[in-house]
């Protein structure tokens, strides 16, 4: 028996040795061949070799594309017919998408989908870690870029979407058919009326005075709420722009040099404004705990009157839901008013849009880019408006949307918002011309979008380095903790910033050194 055990033990070790060696060798071979593929692919693009069309791809995206409950299959079928490529869609829960992506990439290369939709932060991170395919050449040589359909603004956005890759250089690893959009401050007309305010504020002083006046007039516990005091992803400050003003709590490039915005004097002012507003009862006492949906629901229920939220279509959604709650008593007036940025804010921030990325696991990235991804800019109706007959109809030159199962509201647009599109699109209707933004975009939404577009700028770009990967989470822990403690009045802004320096000063310096290298 013992001889047998020892023999089995020895044999298993030898087999283990062989298995380990074999596995590693194959991994190394795969990695090597992967990089060769990428290099070869780039070479192919530049030499304009015929690009093979993939027959099937895998796609992972969040709920910004038509939801499964709203007959997404009809859209999938229409898109497959339009592109000639069958896509296998992975649709994680929208609220848990960030965690899902973390787990997906945590499993490493080899199990990634061909195409994945990433937020700006994840886009920069995974590009730097080498998981995303460099589509710079493909974009430069693509038919869509050279077609003239993309606006100058769109071309500029693509340029701004370049992030640092594993080689330390800026490349295009993601692709978006729309601009990122940003947030506009909405004020309820009823609250303005109650406080007797007829002119919208244009400076911080006027704005804050109006907030206090509305609080008093309505007898409200607070006037503003949001999903936390600072956002979880760039541009971080878009839910409370009037309070942050020129402060930006992240590393950003200033006159060619990367600096830590959280350590600047502007941040001290921002923290003091937040603390004062919290003490004065202007901010929701539980703003730290709020989720986005909670804040929205409280806004619908008229618990507060000033809400900074996404421009464009969301203005219409907010209005509709406020009306549904029957809290609106002025049928002939606007429900909410879009506030142009006050002088101290200057311009709202246009975020970097979530990016459609092709991963390094894709066998034919050029084909996916050419025949599937870049086609999102040709304005297929199924991408703009979902599926004909299922989600919308077009009769006698009039578009009509059907009600969605998930919300009961009428459908408006698919993942390409007409208000955010980057150029003119061909259409199967309207004599082949662009169907225009009127479709699916009520006047109120267009107005809010115009307020934003007329006074917005691109959010600071994101750059990841090894030091950023190592330290970013700890630094953000310190920042969020300081913001919360100062706002709740536990410490002064000055002490908060001193604590920040003391706790993570070394990590910040390490990051800055790497960013400015």
């Amino acid at each position: 028996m013992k001889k047998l055990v020892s023999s089995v033990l020895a044999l298993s070790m030898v087999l283990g040795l062989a298995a380990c060696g074999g596995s590693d060798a194959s991994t190394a071979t795969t990695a090597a061949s992967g990089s060769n593929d990428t290099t070869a692919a780039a070479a192919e693009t530049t030499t304009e070799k015929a690009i093979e069309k993939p027959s099937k791809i895998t796609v992972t995206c969040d709920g910004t594309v038509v939801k499964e409950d709203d007959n997404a299959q009809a859209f999938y079928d229409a898109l497959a017919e339009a592109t000639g490529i069958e896509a296998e869609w992975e649709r994680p829960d929208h609220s848990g998408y960030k965690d899902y992506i973390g787990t997906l990439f945590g499993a490493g290369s080899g199990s990634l989908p061909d195409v994945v939709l990433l937020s700006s932060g994840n886009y920069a991170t995974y590009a730097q870690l080498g998981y995303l395919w460099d589509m710079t050449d493909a974009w430069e040589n693509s038919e869509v870029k050279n077609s003239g359909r993309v606006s100058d603004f769109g071309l500029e956005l693509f340029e701004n979407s370049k992030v640092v890759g594993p080689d330390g250089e800026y490349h295009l690893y993601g692709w978006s058919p729309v601009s990122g959009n940003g947030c506009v401050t909405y004020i309820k007309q009823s609250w303005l009326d109650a406080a007797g305010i007829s002119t919208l504020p244009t400076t911080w002083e006027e704005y804050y005075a109006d907030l206090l006046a509305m609080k008093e007039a309505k007898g409200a516990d607070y006037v503003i709420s949001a999903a936390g005091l600072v956002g979880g992803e760039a541009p971080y400050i878009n839910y409370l722009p009037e309070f942050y003003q020129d402060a930006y709590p992240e590393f950003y490039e200033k006159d060619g040099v990367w600096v830590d915005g959280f350590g600047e004097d502007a941040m001290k002012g921002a923290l003091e404004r937040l603390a004062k507003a919290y003490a004065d009862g202007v901010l929701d006492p539980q703003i730290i705990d709020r989720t986005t949906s909670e804040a929205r629901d409280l806004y619908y229920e008229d618990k507060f009157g000033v809400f900074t939220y996404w421009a464009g279509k969301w203005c219409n959604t907010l209005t509709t839901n406020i009306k549904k709650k029957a809290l609106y008593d002025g049928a002939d007036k606007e429900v909410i008013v879009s506030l142009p940025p006050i002088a101290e804010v200057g311009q709202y921030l246009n975020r970097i849009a979530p990016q459609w990325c092709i991963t390094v696991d894709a066998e034919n990235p050029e084909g996916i880019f050419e025949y599937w991804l870049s086609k999102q800019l040709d304005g297929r109706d199924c991408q703009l408006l979902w599926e004909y007959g299922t989600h919308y109809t077009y009769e006698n030159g009039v578009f009509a949307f059907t009600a969605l199962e998930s919300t009961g509201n009428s459908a408006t647009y698919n993942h390409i918002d007409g208000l955010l599109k980057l150029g003119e699109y061909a259409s199967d209707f309207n004599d082949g011309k662009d169907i225009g933004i009127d479709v699916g975009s009520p006047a109120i939404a267009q107005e809010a979008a115009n307020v934003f577009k007329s006074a917005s700028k691109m959010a600071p770009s994101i750059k990841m380095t090894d030091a950023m990967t190592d330290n970013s989470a700890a630094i953000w822990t310190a920042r969020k903790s300081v913001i919360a403690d100062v706002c709740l009045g536990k410490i002064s802004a000055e002490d908060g910033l001193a604590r920040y320096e003391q706790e993570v000063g070394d990590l910040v310096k390490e990051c800055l050194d790497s960013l400015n290298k």
Partner: protein
Amino acid sequence: MAQCKACNTELPKNAKLCPKCGTKVYVPPKNVRVLAIVGAVMAFLGGLLPFVQNSENVADAYSYMSYLNNDGYQYQNHQTLWYLYMVALIATIIIVVLKKEIFSIITTAIAAIIFGITFSQLTSFMNEDPVYTVGLGTYVVVLGLIIAVVGCFFDILKFRKTVEYDTRYMTNNKSTWSKMVYHKWFYVMFIPVVVFIAIFNYWPMLGVRYAFTDYKRVPVYVGIKHFAGMVAKDPYFWRAFWNTLQLSVIKLVLNTGMAVIISLLLHEITNIWFKKTVQTIIYLPHFMSWVVVASIFRMLLDTSDAGMINTFLMNANLVNEPVYFMGSVEHWRGVYYIVNIWRDTGWGTILFLATLSGISPELYEAAEIDGANRFNKMRYITLPALANTIITVFILNLAKVMNLFESVFVLMNDAVISVADVIQTYIYRMSFSGGNNYGYTTAVGLFKSLVGCVLVLICDYASKKVRGRGIV
């Protein structure tokens, strides 16, 4: 269990004489062969891991030996030495299993010498090419060889004493193999379990290797960088560690204490219908998701008019303005413990009630005759009967103190992170926000597992002392 050679009486643990016939008995020493085998296996596995690691590309290390030979390195027989080393270790294991310990020390020494030669060459190699650093395998091999050599010495010393030991009295004379053949179908039925555990429990453990890398598409070996960073660089690791211990242990004490009190009270209830109704009601919260529980308590503790607790406190003139319980470092932990007690106390009473129902009614009757009142009966009969169960529950749960996540995650926020952040929430934040630093969080996770492992061993030891058997 050992038996007396003279009368076949089962001998107590560590007995020197048979309690029945008084014959001097010999109790064999503990089987320490496992020490030598573990050491040899470790040294063997260390031989598979990189002795020297390219600090820029972790993939380089796997083919290190062939790389040296192909690169025209001065010691062309390097790979041969490596094979000799591995064979020596396999021989050690076989010899130990065959109980020829006196020879095992020779093969182990051969392996150690070969390693020494190899390592001296590798050291000079590293000096020539600074991109290479000492690999994980080197540490494992050194540790393994030390354990193996010590184990072999122990074996030799042990078996010198067992010359007159007669195995016939220690077990039946059937070999293990014969027993296995006889019970073969049980082993066949056991195969799915082994496969399941191997795939879902042990295979994922291979991921711990990423604790030694910067986790990128091609992981980069960084040695113990993450462990050093965790201990010395990151300002929030130790805070999370101590928070974990404090929150877990206090929660454990409070939950167990409350469960005991509730059990004693329930035990005193004579109306069965009422008792069962109460039991059902207090069990229910345990089946609620932590997300739902957090939502309920957030509503109760809301600072607006909707918050029942604050409204009560204000109306009772106990506070002048609403208290933000969930955002206050002074109150958060208290709220956390109360929420945990509310949710889990009922469930925790099951074991205690089962124990209480097993206490003989005669004891209570006798006490009543002796004039004991209810309090005295509880003090002198119920509580002593319950003591063993209380300690058992406490010990079993102590092993799980590091596994604190969901309950904290749903209740914490940025304002209370200094008192609420625990190891698991720390890992979550480091993994999924900021830089997605998987290598670092794997290292933290490994550390947490090691601490958990130590706690389990301590609990196992304590359990053996208290209950006479381990926790499994």
